[in-house]
Structures are given as C-alpha cells and as structure tokens.
C-alpha cells in the first residue's frame, strides 16, 4: 500500500489543484445557469410572471430596497434579534452544559428532561409569546433562544463527555483543582463541539428570528415579506427572500470562519456528532 500513496502524493495534489480551479468554474457556470433559468422560465411563460417575476425585475426590486431607509432598519432589526438571541442561547447553553456535563449525577438526572424538552418545536411558543410580549423584540428572543439553546447545550454535553479519561486522571494526580481541570482539560476538548453548537445554533437562530417576524409581526425582514405578500408586491417579496438567503449564506460563512479561526491550533476539525 505504500507505493501509490508515496508516489502519487505530489501528483494528486497538483491534480486536486487543477480540479479545484475546474470546480470553481463549474460552480460559477452552475450559478449562472440557475440565474438564467430564473429569468427565462417566467419570460417563456412556463410559470406566470405574476407568481415568479423574471430575475431582472427581482433585481430591480432589490435595487429599490437598497435605497429605502426602512429596509435597512428592518435588516438591522432582524440581525439584532438574531445576534442577541444567539448570544443569550450560547451563554446559557455553555454554562448549563458545563455544569451538567461535569457533574455526573446532574447529567444522569437531567437526561430525560433534556430529551423531552429538546424536540418540542419552538413554534409552539408563538401564541404564548404573542400574548405575553406582543410584537416586541422579546417575542423574537423567546423563540430564538429556546430553539438555539438546545443546539448549543447538546453539543457541549457531547464535548464534555468526550474528555479523555486518561487526561482527566493525569490532571487529578497532578493535583489540579476542579476549576483548573475544567480550564485546562475539559474546555480545550469541548471547544470544537462548542463551536459546532454555535454554528448550528446560528443557522437555527436566523430561521426562528425571521419566522417570528413573519408570523408574529415583530419588525424585521420577515414582517416585510409578509407585508409585501399581502400587498401583492411580488417582485419585492422575492427580493426580500433573496436578502434572507444572502443573510443565511453570510451567517454560515461567518460561523465556519470563526470555527476554523479558533480551531486552527486544534488537531481535529471535527464533524457533527451523529447520534
């Protein structure tokens, strides 16, 4: 088995380089095809332009949006709800996760409750949020925090459990205090999981922020979409949908960057835990 790996290594790398170039080109081509279809399909009348306006009209609506102060306010509202909710959920999730994860009895006695509460769809809280908070930011935060908290918590619990018992024992024999053990053994092991949790939570938080705006009517992009739809401003609605997509892409890219940057020293960029 030694032969092809040692031999082909330089070759394979350069081939990968060429493929990466070719891949990027194919990707651009793919996206161009997608855009062309969005323009051509409604123009050819395959789908009524009343339902799906040609891309150029959506582009025009997008340009109009960019000139409106109200749009930027809505975007700011959405980002604020997303960020605040995410920050609260991460702080809560990490704290609770470490406390439960490092105390075996707590872990044992909370497991069933976590398993029960986690799958409860956060949208079940919508009517409650409306009754208690109306269309305030707090409504949005309630949903966002509830949904993203579990993502962080569960990953942190996986991470704390992943701590190498040998490392933990070693730390104990060297007389490290409980706090020092958490600081120097548990935290570095769990960090990749924490960041995975943050990345997953960031995506979920955006979905819930926009959902809350759309359904409850809290100010933000979701609410703007609802208004555009009920007002029959179809191109504008699509433009707003595109903005939410771009926002989603930005959130994903940012979260991944953050993860890679913080873990550049870490031996393994790990994948999500399957179970």
């Amino acid at each position: 088995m030694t032969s092809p790996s040692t031999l082909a290594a330089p070759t394979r790398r350069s081939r990968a380089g060429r493929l990466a170039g070719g891949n990027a080109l194919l990707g651009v081509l793919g996206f161009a095809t997608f855009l062309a279809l969005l323009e051509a399909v409604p123009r050819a009348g395959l789908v009524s332009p009343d339902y799906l306006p040609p891309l150029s009209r959506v582009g025009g609506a997008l340009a109009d949006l960019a000139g409106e102060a109200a749009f930027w306010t809505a975007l700011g509202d959405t980002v604020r709800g997303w960020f605040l909710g995410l920050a609260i959920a991460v702080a809560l999730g990490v704290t609770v996760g470490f406390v439960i994860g490092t105390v075996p009895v707590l872990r044992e006695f909370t497991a069933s409750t976590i398993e029960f509460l986690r799958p409860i769809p956060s949208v079940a809280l919508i009517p409650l949020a409306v009754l208690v908070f109306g269309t305030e930011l707090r409504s949005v935060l309630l949903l966002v925090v509830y949904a993203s908290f579990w993502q962080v918590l569960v990953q942190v619990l996986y991470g704390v459990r992943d701590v190498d018992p040998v490392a933990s024992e070693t730390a104990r024999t060297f007389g490290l205090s409980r706090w020092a053990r958490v600081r120097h053994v548990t935290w570095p092991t769990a960090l990749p999981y924490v960041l995975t949790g943050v990345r997953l939570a960031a995506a979920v938080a955006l979905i819930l922020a926009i959902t809350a705006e759309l359904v409850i009517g809290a100010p933000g992009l979701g609410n703007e979409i609802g208004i555009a739809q009920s007002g029959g401003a179809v191109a504008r609605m699509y433009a707003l949908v595109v903005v939410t997509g771009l926002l989603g892409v930005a959130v994903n890219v940012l979260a991944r960057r953050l993860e890679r940057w913080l873990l550049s020293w870490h031996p393994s960029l790990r994948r999500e835990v399957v179970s």
Partner: protein
Amino acid sequence: MSILRRVTRASLAALTLPAALLALWWILTADSESYYLPPLSDILAAVDDVWLRSGRLSADVLPSLLRLLGGFLLAVALGVTLGIAIGSSRRLRAFCEPVLEFLRAIPPPVLVPVLMLFAGIGDTMKVLVIVSGCVWPILLNTVEGVRAVDEVLVETARCYGLRGPSRLWHLVVRSASPQIVTGLRQGLSIGIILMVISEMFAASNGLGFSIIQFQRTFAVTEMWTGILLLGLLGFLLAMLMRLFERRALNWYFGLRQAQRGGSR
C-alpha cells in the same frame, strides 16, 4: 439484585426531575390568577373537552399529521435520489454546490408566502412548504454520505462485480445511511415547524391553526392544551425517529464502539 438496583436507579434518574417540574408547575399555578398562566389542573382538565370530545383530534390533528407525513416522504424521496446523483458525480457536485449553498440558506418559513402564490392556501401549499424545507438537510447530508463512501469498499464492490441497483443499495445507500438518517432527523424537526407555521399563516384546520385560533380568541387554557399537545407530538415523533435510527443504524453504532476500543 444489582440489575434490579440499576433499573431502579435509572428510572429514578429518568423520572425525578420531570415529576418535580410538573409538581412545581402544578403548585405554583394552583391559585394562579394570572391571565396567561392558568392552573395546570385546569389545563389538563380541559384536554379532554378541547381535543377528544370535540373531534378535533380527527378534524385538526390528523390532517396536520397527514400533511407532515406526505411532505416528509416526498422530501425523503427527492432528497435521497438527488443526493445520490449529486454525490456520485464530482462534476455535477461542483456545478450544483453554490446554488444549493444559497437555496439551503434561505430560512424555510419565508417560502410560505412564496408558495401561497403558486398553490393557494390548501393542502398542496402546505405539503409543498414542508417538502421545500425538509429536502435540504436530507439532500445535503446524502451528498456528504455518498461522497464519503470508502474507497477500498468501492474497489471491493467492483472486483466482485457489484453493479446496478445492487451496488446502489448494498454499497452506496447503506454506506451513506448514517448521514442520510442525520438528514432525516434534521428534516423532520424542520418539517414539524413548517407544518405549524403554514397552518398559522393560512389554514382552515390543523393543529397550528387551532392553537393560533385559541390565542386570537383569548381562550388561554385551550391554547395551553394545544401547546402541550404540540410539544408531546414533537417528542413522540423524535422518539419514533430514534427507534428507526437504532434499527437502521445498529451496525453503525456497533462499528463506532468497536473503533473506539470497545469502551463506553
């Protein structure tokens, strides 16, 4: 003796906190005058009236579940098929990747107003909304799974003449199944959210519709029964999913444990 003790301890661990929380809820709300927080005893007493005797179980919950089931199954068929196709071809993957990256980043609930344009507010719209939200995690996880099929296993299959549907099932699908199941699990939880939202937005029946109706008519106790029911439903579906996962991926959990050196 020790087994009995372990079982006792396990059930004690599983039941103590939920029981304590429920008891706490019961006691704290017992004399509640709060408009938003009716006594738990009232809520539980209302369940029978609101959902069972009124026929809402078949008139509202059943249609919701059927739409969810239909949308989810369609999304599975679509996601797994496309995922295998895209995952198997490097070029196709490179071609589709940026578009998929964008489409999956769109928060699925904004598709509710979009799809209402095309399909009105009937069952079709709701099923489509569920499909359009569920399909991405299933599709993308399948792509990842198919990509990660072990090279040695691929060569083994080639050497022993495995091809066609047999190769697809025994090699590609089985080998990607851990990722596919992860996709199914993520897809299902998005599906439930979309089921509720599409009904809250525009519907004449359904669980989400009922709950939002109760809220709009300030029937707070009834609303609470709906929230509890929805929570229970989410929990039960997650349990079903887990059962399926345990069965389908029995080999995978065993393999992982063996690779870890049998510990844990």
